[in-house]
């Protein structure tokens, strides 16, 4: 199998689906001829033609609204929002429309669209190229929210998202497009080729939505993470010497409650990690779920390691970004509670 980085894997997912299903098309700002500012749609216009992969006006509201219309017709558009920080002009169409069309029409109409968007920090992008707005979508009934953490999952999850009959917001952790990132920004970054999850089949396969992955088994503590933070958590686990079980959630809604509960019941301790600001972040939901489902098994308070409740600040990239040091400290604190 060829070694793919995340960009190639996502591109391969689109390629496979466009070859398989003429109802799949891809568009977005700079996503046509140029192939996207991160190159995820590279080559698709050449291969599938101008009307299958094309450039859109700079109008996230227009992009998402037209995708809804196409979805209602019966197509499966995969649209790109150039940065998650720019999804807000399309937010109304997601929150008031895409999410509710099935419900309000009693299942008559539905919206099988996928909205891809790069998210997250670690690239010195300042406050408008670094945000993690996933909780603004996990809060919306009728939307599925997916975040892969490696090339194999990225391809399999994107194919599942495209084949899914409900609207999916698919967040791509841009910091790890080209290689896994432990959060040690002063160390050289490994390319994906050195990572087993870069082994990506060329053809069609799926990774199911709603299924988490235990990426590091352990007995003492459960870490719940997704996206770039999976790699940061793995680094923190390795460095702390704590026998942590690291769970990559992969899908935030619907979340894989069984895997979470099974792990926390075993370890009795839980640390939740995300880049997004703390207040009303997805970690709050995870915290509540663990408390509701595992309370009598908990041996320590659940800990959250998150971004701060400030906009993402340019010069303070590495102070803001929850790195392995902060994650490791939270793990230690959680272990020390008896």
């Amino acid at each position, binding site marked *: 199998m060829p070694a793919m980085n995340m960009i190639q894997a996502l591109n391969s997912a689109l390629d496979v689906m466009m070859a398989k299903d003429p109802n799949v098309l891809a568009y977005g700002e700079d996503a046509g001829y140029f192939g996207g500012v991160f190159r995820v749609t590279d080559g698709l216009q050449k291969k599938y033609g101008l009307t299958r992969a094309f450039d859109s006006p700079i109008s996230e509201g227009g992009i998402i609204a037209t995708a809804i219309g196409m979805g209602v017709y019966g197509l499966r558009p995969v649209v790109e929002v150039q940065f998650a920080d720019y999804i807000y002009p399309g937010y109304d169409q997601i929150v008031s429309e895409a999410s509710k069309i099935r419900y309000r029409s009693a299942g008559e109409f539905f919206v099988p669209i996928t909205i891809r968007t790069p998210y997250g920090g670690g690239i010195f992008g300042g406050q408008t190229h670094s945000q993690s707005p996933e909780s603004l979508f996990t809060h919306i009934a009728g939307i599925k929210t997916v975040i892969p953490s490696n090339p194999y999952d990225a391809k399999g999850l994107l194919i599942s998202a495209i084949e899914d009959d409900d609207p999916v917001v698919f967040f791509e952790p841009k910091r790890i497009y080209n290689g896994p990132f432990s959060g040690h920004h002063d160390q050289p970054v490994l390319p994906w080729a050195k990572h087993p999850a870069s082994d990506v089949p060329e053809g069609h396969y799926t990774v199911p939505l709603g299924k988490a992955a235990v990426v590091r088994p352990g007995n003492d503590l459960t870490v719940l993470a997704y996206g770039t933070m999976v790699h940061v958590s793995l680094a923190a686990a390795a460095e702390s010497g704590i026998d942590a079980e690291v769970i990559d959630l992969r899908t935030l809604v619907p979340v894989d409650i069984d895997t979470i509960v099974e792990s926390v019941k075993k370890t009795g301790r839980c640390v939740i990690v995300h880049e997004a600001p*703390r207040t009303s972040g997805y970690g709050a939901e995870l915290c509540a779920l663990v408390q509701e489902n595992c309370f009598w098994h908990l041996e320590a308070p659940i800990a959250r390691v998150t971004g*701060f409740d400030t906009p993402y600040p340019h010069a303070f990239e590495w102070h803001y970004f929850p790195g392995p040091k902060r994650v490791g400290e939270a793990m230690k604190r959680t272990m020390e509670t008896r």
Partner: protein
Amino acid sequence: MKNRIPLSLRVPEPKCRPGDKPDFSALKLPEAGSVPRPEISAHARELLEYPFTLIRVLDAKGRAVGPWNPKLEPETLRRGLKHMLLVRVYDDRMYRAQRQGKTSFYMKSTGEEAVAIAAAYALERDDMCFPSYRQQGLLIARGYPLIDMMNQVYSNVKDPVKGRQLPIMYSSKEYNFFTISGNLGTQFPQAVGWAMASAYKGDDRIAASWIGDGTTAEGDFHYAMTFASVYRAPVILNVVNNQWAISCFQGIAGGNEATFASKAIGYGLPGLRVDGNDFLAVYAATQWAAARARANFGATMIELYTYRAEAHSTSDDPSRYRPADEAKAWPLGDPVERLKQHLIAIGEWSEEQHQAALAEAQEQVRAANKEAEAVGVLGQGNIPSVKTMFEDVYKDMPWHLRRQRQETGV
């Protein structure tokens, strides 16, 4: 019986791609001086032809001709030229700084210097500007210190916005330059609101805003035009049509179906279409729109027809989507060269003076940059105190932010 043909989807494409010979032969350029100058009180209904022509003052020989000639003093023209040179030199230096790893990002305005400089000259110093990221010329024309711009670009301890913003996202209340947003288009309707407030208060200041051709596709464009028209707001709404929005030619924003200026018609606003590389034309159109706004006749939309001569930003490589030599083929030339040619033609400038002015701009930029680099460049750690990261989220810091600040140990 049905007699229907299969529908087909159209996706517009630019005329030229990499490897093609640049071709602007389809551009219809009216003669300089050929467009009449209406009264500022004219109703938008009387101005329906303006969006389809091009207001030009400088002709091919560098003469200033026609009714739009603002008849500026030679001294003003020389200052304008020097300011454009300064923007160009500044852009080159900061671009290089990014390439040298001294900052994360930069965006040049090369080829579009007249858009910002001439507008700044035609506006009053206390008129409020709501720019996009490509009007650094406004700050430079208003005399904002270069060193402060550089400190912002380097996100260092003296950065006026405290290291919080991506390079080029300047802010200066003192210079009536609104804090730049990375989210395209948001400032356009905000400028209208500022202008409405100024009208409400019986103030005499007006507002001006700038967005790119690509950004007209955002809903904000519609909000701005609607409110500006309904409330007759004293605002100038500039659309800088530099032909490209990153890799997308202006046809993707709808520019092939109708000119951007003509969008004003449906809102009942005047739409002027102006040669954006002609300092005098930009000055004259802005002056007209400003006089109109000040006289309570309301808003004007101006399409500045220009060309983005270089990459979108330091993250972009335009040779992947447009002919490499397209900028050189741009039929409206270069704003610096054209004003220079004009000044020489009227005997108020020489090649020697130009070289001296260029050297002076270079020296000014070099000296400021030396000072800014001594303060610190990005990644060196000479950033504002980490404590400040938690400030200004709210006027008063709530308990949860104070706690987060304490947790970081600062």
